[in-house]
């Protein structure tokens, strides 16, 4: 497993890298945004760990967006300047799968890295359920999602979320269950993760994200995937 760590502080790069190496991961260290993008292309890591504030050139959020344009590789943000929930949501909206606030304990850091990699691994070996109503088609086995015949790029977390909802189609999945099944039991208190990802998913698969028909919110309980009969689907 290859993990790329991007941070302008050498002490942080070194310590995190050392710890991950001890845990058996292959580690690539980068000290700024441009270098990290170059390394991403050449090395194709399985996980990117990104600092946000980097004084030279590109910041973490930009790197994250650039990576998302070309790959679904899991990204973990590791930042010191998160003051409000908005900062975290901004990071998640940029395409990150995980947002950790510095300082983080080594053990927790390693646990989160393991969880995120587990998620991306596991999602590719899901049940082979399929869904197709003419407008939206989902093939869990091949990890393909099409909207109006066009292939969609979903991040591993987005895909995992959609998969859990589809497997429970017609039933309400509570926030807590979503957190546990998609992110892992370490995440049950990170209540804003589902909110952000549901919103991103809706933007990708719904015709009108403000009036969703597939992913419905059950107020104060959770979310529900509603299958649409092909008769109700209009072409276009």
């Amino acid at each position: 497993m290859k993990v790329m760590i991007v941070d302008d502080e050498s002490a942080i790069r070194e310590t995190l890298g050392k710890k991950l190496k001890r845990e058996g991961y292959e580690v690539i260290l980068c000290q700024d945004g441009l270098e990290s993008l170059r390394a991403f292309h050449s090395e194709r890591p399985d996980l990117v760990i990104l600092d946000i504030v980097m004084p030279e050139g590109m910041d973490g959020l930009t790197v994250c967006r650039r990576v998302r344009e070309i790959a679904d590789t899991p990204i973990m943000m590791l930042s010191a300047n998160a003051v409000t929930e908005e900062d975290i949501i901004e990071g998640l909206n940029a395409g990150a799968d995980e947002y950790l606030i510095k300082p983080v304990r080594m053990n927790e850091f390693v646990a989160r890295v393991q969880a995120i990699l587990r998620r991306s691994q596991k999602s590719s070996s899901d049940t082979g359920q399929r869904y197709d109503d003419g407008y939206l088609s989902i093939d869990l086995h091949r990890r393909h999602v099409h909207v109006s015949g066009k292939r969609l790029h979903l991040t591993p977390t987005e895909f995992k979320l959609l998969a859990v909802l589809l497997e429970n189609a017609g039933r309400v999945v509570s926030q807590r269950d979503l957190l546990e099944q998609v992110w892992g039991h370490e995440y049950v208190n990170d209540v804003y993760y589902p909110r952000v990802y549901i919103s991103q998913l809706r933007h990708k698969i719904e015709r009108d994200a403000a009036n969703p028909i597939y992913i419905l919110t059950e107020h104060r309980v959770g979310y529900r995937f509603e299958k649409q009969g092909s008769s109700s689907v209009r072409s276009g």
Partner: protein
Amino acid sequence: MTDFGAAALIVYGVTLALSLAFLLILLWSDVRKELNQFFAAFLMLVLLWNTGALMWQAIDQLRIESPLLTLAIGITELGFTGASVAVYALTAVLVRAHTKRFRVLTFFTLGLIIVYRVILIANSQRFVTSSAYFSTVQRQPIVVAFYLIFDFGALFLLWRNRRKVRSVGIMAGLTLFVIGQTLAFVDTDLDLFQVSFAVSAIASLVLSFSIVAQEIIKPVSEHNSQVEAIRRVGLAITSLASLTSVLEQVARQAAELLKTDGGVTILLSRDGELETAAVYRLPRSFLHLRMPLGEGAAGLAALSQQTNLIDNYELNWKGTEDYPLARQTFGSVVCTPLVYGGQTIGVIMVIGAKHGILFQKEDVYLLELLGAQAAVAISHSQLFSDVEFARRQLETVLISTESPVIAVDRKFHLIFANRTARQLLQQSSDTEENLPNGTPIRDLIPPYALPLSAALALSELRRRGTYTYEATINDRVYLCNIAPLGTPRVTGWVAVMNDVTELKELDRLKSEMVRMTSHDLKNPLQAAMAYTELLRDDLEPAGDQAVLESIDKIDWQLQRMNRIIRGILDLERVKSGVRRFENYPPARAIELSVVELRQFASSQGVQLQVEQDDSLPTIRCDAEQVRRALVNLIENAIKFTPHGGVVSVRAYTQDGSVVFEISDTGVGIAPEARPRVFDRYYRSQQKGTEHITGSGIGLSLVKAVAENHRGKTWLSSEVGKGTTFYISFPVGQVRTSYSQ
């Protein structure tokens, strides 16, 4: 028979008839008046004497011899002598130079004379002709002296007090009467005797007419002109604006109305003393002299709310002197209280000089009329000047303040804008005009600077009395505070706009600063913590306990530093963060907070008890903030509870609020420390808590959260037994459906 005799006969007859008429008029008008009583006595004696004289003259003229002549002479003498006493008494009463026993004395004297005369008549010779009478009559010196004493006494009194008698007729009549009576003693010649009678008779007629004119006719005829005079005076007083000129005008008009020497306006000050506020034709040194209520002639009038009329200040006023040398210089004085709305506000005092004018009942009446108007004028002027003073003060405050102040009426038309507000409005509406009052506010202020929702603003104003919003005008940020004008009915609104641009910028810089600092601190902290952990991993196999312990201590201190930084950031977030309000179930807040701290509690050996009640109403809050507050409170409770203790958490409703209660079995808080525990960075120096680490921020964050939600925090504690913290939030608004 001479022609004179016939003329005398007519004079007596006319005098008789007119005297009778005057007497009737007098009795009809007012018998109780002292002057009238003395005048009636005088008239009756004139009647008596003229009756006698008429009979006597008639007998003479008819040239008959009749025993009635003796009676006629007797009656004449009786009336004539009596009249001389009566005229003295009348003069004394007219100039008010009489004492209380004067009346008794006068009537006693008259009675004595009458008795003496009746005895004389009874015992005298019987005359059948006048010549016989005159041949026998002897002018005894005692009789002459008697006449002279009373007549000239009257004349002296009259001269001495000549300014007190306003009627020329009275003066002339009295003088003529004295001359007439004196004539009788010049010679005993019959004719001159008759002339004396005739002159006296005419004099008494003149006197009578003058008195009737002064006492009865003049008051009636002058009534209208007096009312007119009062009206003019009233106008003069009430048309003035300033209090000082009103007071001066009252003193002046009162003195001029009563045609006298001086007037004073005295006001009752707030401390209950009378103070001379204005003088007219009196020494300026009287001004601002003070006198307690009830003292002095004016003080008595003020206290009793009754006009105080003093004929002679020296003789009749026994109380405290109103002014220096008043006894020596004041003559007649009238003090009329100024009463407004049942309250005495002052006194008008009108003063006649010694031997000057003597005030009559009519003067009192006039002064009281004037007083009533003056009281109204002074009160209004006082009120006006009070209001004007307050208004000017307020205006000065408003004008001099740098914050724009704008007031509008109920139709949202401009009614006031101070200088800075006008400048702001001119800039924002791009006009050079003067912005007249009455302009609709919508034409003056750009819509983005008005409250977003007028309905919301009005309902807030109704509920809380104020409404505050932020408006940006010309790149400056104003905190507009709106309050209603007028109570109880709202007549408009006033907005005070505080320029908070600099504060906003400072706040932004501060937040920026906190962000930067936190970032700069967190990176080295992350590195240090990571190195420590790596070091521990490296050294653990070697098993040197001392080294490992040291590493653990370094790690503990780094964790502590981390908590402090997190606390500062949490507080910053609560104080400046965007608040997202939602209806949130209290049970959920407890559940999530407890989940976060279960592990910490068990590591401290503290049992965490939770009493869940899902039926509680939701609270309208920023859920994240409420959770942070609860986490802080519970964490705090765990920290201060020794191993084996219990921390229990529950929530319940009380007075429209949801109260969270977090109690522990910890060390408790000393009473002197209790008021300060919610202060930022405050840490109790209590025994048994030295080992507990913390930033001293947690509870100030709790307080800030409560304040953000219009909630409250409080605590109860017992040293050695434990502490209970409470935080309450108002229950969220229940949404009702109107569509049913």
